[in-house]
């Protein structure tokens, strides 16, 4: 039995379960916090479960929440594989959404499918542009991308506030005193297909298909090869004739493009207009940040990001319903999400340590110490 457990513990496949274990541990600590709040954790987590999976509508909401996480997570897979830390998903998503919305609102009438397709492209390029700027700054001026992408988030938020309160404001809102920062609604013909009566929209298909596309990109194309090579070892990449700086720009550009696409899909699939509440995450709902966690949870593998995004979608939707039903303070829900994030991210470190240990063990088994005759001393007197 002990041997059996040790074997499981040492196997590679166990690594895959570690994020799940980490998430469960976070929920366990959440349970203790719930007890202090005087709430029965079983009741609360049941509410969470039902809220996330309990009905077809709940499931649909979970998936709807998962779509932007998956798309942004895919972009993160690309940039993190190049060792470029993109914290700018928020801003890239906003710019993508702005571009897509503007396209739908201001371009003369065209067939719906064409507008949708071109709006997606607009969102893609909007995000790509917003990602390419820090990418360029990092590659050619050595500006830390963590800093610059965060700054680009702040700029994007203010741009959004400006446009939604000013030039792009809904004409109806402009006449009212309330002046909610939102654009006009997109015409019916431009909406992505939905599975009524739920809010589940066709964006989920786009996202899942793109997950496979990113998988192909990373592991079956020369571009993906270059991106991974640069991430693993820029010196060797340069030696191999790869233009390292260019890959850094491309990685951040693509990463931003996926976030921009997430923004566009959010508009055309869900909101049908761009709307914010004035807070920095008013439009995105922190998807730009949660997407990073999603990607890490999925092991930075595009196909791993699919279940990971589903899990986080469920967590977010379920936590809301838990809050409604068991009346826990909203701060608790935020704390619970934070706990899961911290646990999952730290499990990645643990995973790495385990891999290193395995590697050392493998090497020990593979190569017996070179046996060498002790002849060094003899030849000195030549």
């Amino acid at each position, binding site marked *: 039995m002990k041997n059996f457990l040790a074997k499981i513990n040492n196997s590679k496949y166990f690594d895959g379960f570690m994020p799940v274990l980490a998430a469960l541990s976070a929920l366990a600590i959440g349970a203790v916090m719930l007890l202090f709040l005087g709430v029965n954790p079983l009741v609360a987590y049941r509410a969470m479960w039902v809220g996330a999976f309990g009905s077809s509508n709940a499931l649909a909401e979970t998936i709807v929440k998962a779509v932007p996480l998956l798309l942004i997570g895919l972009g993160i897979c690309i940039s993190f594989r190049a060792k470029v830390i993109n914290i700018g998903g928020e801003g890239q998503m906003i710019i993508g959404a702005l571009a897509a919305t503007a396209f739908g609102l201001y371009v003369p009438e065209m067939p719906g499918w064409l507008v949708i397709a071109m709006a997606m492209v607009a969102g893609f390029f909007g995000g790509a542009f917003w990602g390419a700027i820090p990418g360029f700054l990092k590659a050619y001026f050595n500006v830390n991308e963590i800093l610059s992408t965060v700054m680009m988030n702040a700029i994007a938020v203010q741009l959004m506030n400006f446009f939604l309160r000013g030039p792009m404001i809904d004409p109806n809102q402009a006449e009212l005193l309330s002046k909610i920062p939102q654009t006009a609604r997109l015409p019916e013909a431009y909406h992505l297909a939905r599975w009524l009566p739920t809010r589940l929209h066709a964006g989920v298909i786009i996202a899942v298909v793109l997950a496979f596309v990113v998988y192909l990109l990373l592991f079956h194309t020369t571009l993906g090869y270059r991106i991974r090579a640069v991430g693993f*070892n820029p010196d060797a990449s340069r*030696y*191999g004739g790869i233009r390292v700086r260019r890959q850094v720009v491309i990685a951040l550009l693509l990463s931003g493009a996926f976030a921009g696409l997430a923004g566009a899909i959010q508009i055309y699939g869900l909101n049908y207009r761009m709307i914010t509440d004035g807070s920095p995450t008013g439009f995105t709902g922190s998807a730009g940040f949660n997407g990073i966690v999603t990607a890490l949870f999925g092991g930075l593998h595009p196909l791993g990001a699919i279940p990971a995004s589903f899990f986080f979608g469920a967590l977010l939707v379920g936590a809301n319903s838990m809050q409604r039903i068991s009346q826990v303070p909203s701060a608790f829900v935020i704390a619970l999400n934070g706990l899961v994030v911290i646990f999952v991210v730290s499990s990645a470190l643990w995973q790495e340590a385990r891999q290193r240990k395995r590697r050392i063990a493998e*090497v020990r088994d*593979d190569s017996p110490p*070179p046996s060498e005759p*002790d002849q*060094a001393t003899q*030849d000195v007197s*030549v």
Partner: protein
Amino acid sequence: MSDVQSISFERQRIEHLELKNITKRFPGVLANAHVDFDVRAGEVHALLGENGAGKSTLMKILYGLYHPDEGEIFINGSPVRIASPNDAINLGIGMIHQHFMLVDSLTVAENIALGLPSSRGLLTDLDVVSARTEMLAKKYGLLVDPGAYIWQLAVGQRQRVEILKALYRGADLLILDEPTAVLTPQEVDEFMETIRQMTEEKHSIIFISHKLHEVIAISQRVTVLRNGRRVDSCPTAGCTKHDLARMMVGQEIVMPKLTTPPKRGEVRLELKNVHAQSDRETPALRGVDLQIFSGEIVGLAGVSGNGQAELAQVVTGLRPATQGQVLIEGRDMTGKLPGEIIRCGLAYIPEERMRDGMVQDFNISENIILRDHNKDPYAKRGFLLHRVIAEFTDRLIDLFHIKTPSRETPARNLSGGNIQKVVLARELSRQPRIIVAAQPSRGLDIGATEYVHNSLLEQREKGAAILLISEDLDEILALSDRVAVVYEGRIMGILDNKDAERERVGLLMAGVHPD
């Protein structure tokens, strides 16, 4: 004075420290093999050896940073266990690293106090520290202002702070890891004086260096390491520079012989008055002129750090030339991207093969295509053809006798020799017209070394132009049709194989013209 001593706890002074039979293995590398070393109070014992000879490993073991696989450490005859630098410090061992471990934004006194308990409990006792520091400084001639910030100090002064830090912690034995590498000549003189002071106070000093004249000037005994083994230990008094140099580079493996005269063809690689800077932005190459013909091996001999690494990088496009030209088959390739130079048929076996030659986290297949990943037959329209790549990799694994569980094995799991074989397989299978091989056999065992040598000779037969850069003089002399000697970024001379005697090359390496 009593203050200072009160800090050195109630333990014995180190009168005699011995390392016995120390063996340390890293994956694929035998860093130390049954090494003995000892040092007595009041003595400077120099530890001499080439890069990668195992000096640093041995000292890291003594300082508790590594743990030996075999062997023991004795202080005054009784065995001790050194599990961490803390243990080492408590036993009275101090180490001055090549790269200083100081906090720039703190003062000298603050740096010295860092990590020590305060005599006032939770309150700092920096005035006490300053006073003691000044006392120590006066005693050993290590003048620094305890109130000065580290960032204000010159390199030589920072080193004094490091030494003071160790002395303050009661170190009887100091390990100095290439201490003079960063100093100006004047600072070196002052530093030597400090060492003399310390030995007079009965401190033991281990002096790591590969600068022969310093070793001769300062040490009483010298131990030479080569390839992880102790070659010899002897009193410095009886040694000449020459003896030491021979022990350092030494001969170890049977070298192949050039059996056929070179089938010299056209000029493949030409350097005209090439200048380049080092990473520290000091001039590394100052006007190199060199021609390499098809079908010959030109050996570049020289003491480490005379511009060899920079020369290889300039040729391969990894480092810009600040002046001059690099011509490949008559075409000016100066300042071209590495990728463009690769396309001219240049193969490069880099000195830092783990860092430059390999992506450790890639498997063997992925490493094999590092140079040509986007070219036919490995890729079509931007997609990798995994099946073709796999077949090709399997063929190379076979052909080059690479020992690996499979082509899917990550490169980092291979031994040093096999990693070099993967590099060779990749570079030589491209039918290179020019080969730059930098330290191609460093750190390899005998079998792998012979393999590397034979591969190079085979390429010579095939008509490649080969630049062989090595610090192993025997390797150079055995393999080269012509020997070029580099000194301070210039070619001191080029000798034909038959004229290249050890003595002549050695003098040129030291910057002396024999005539």
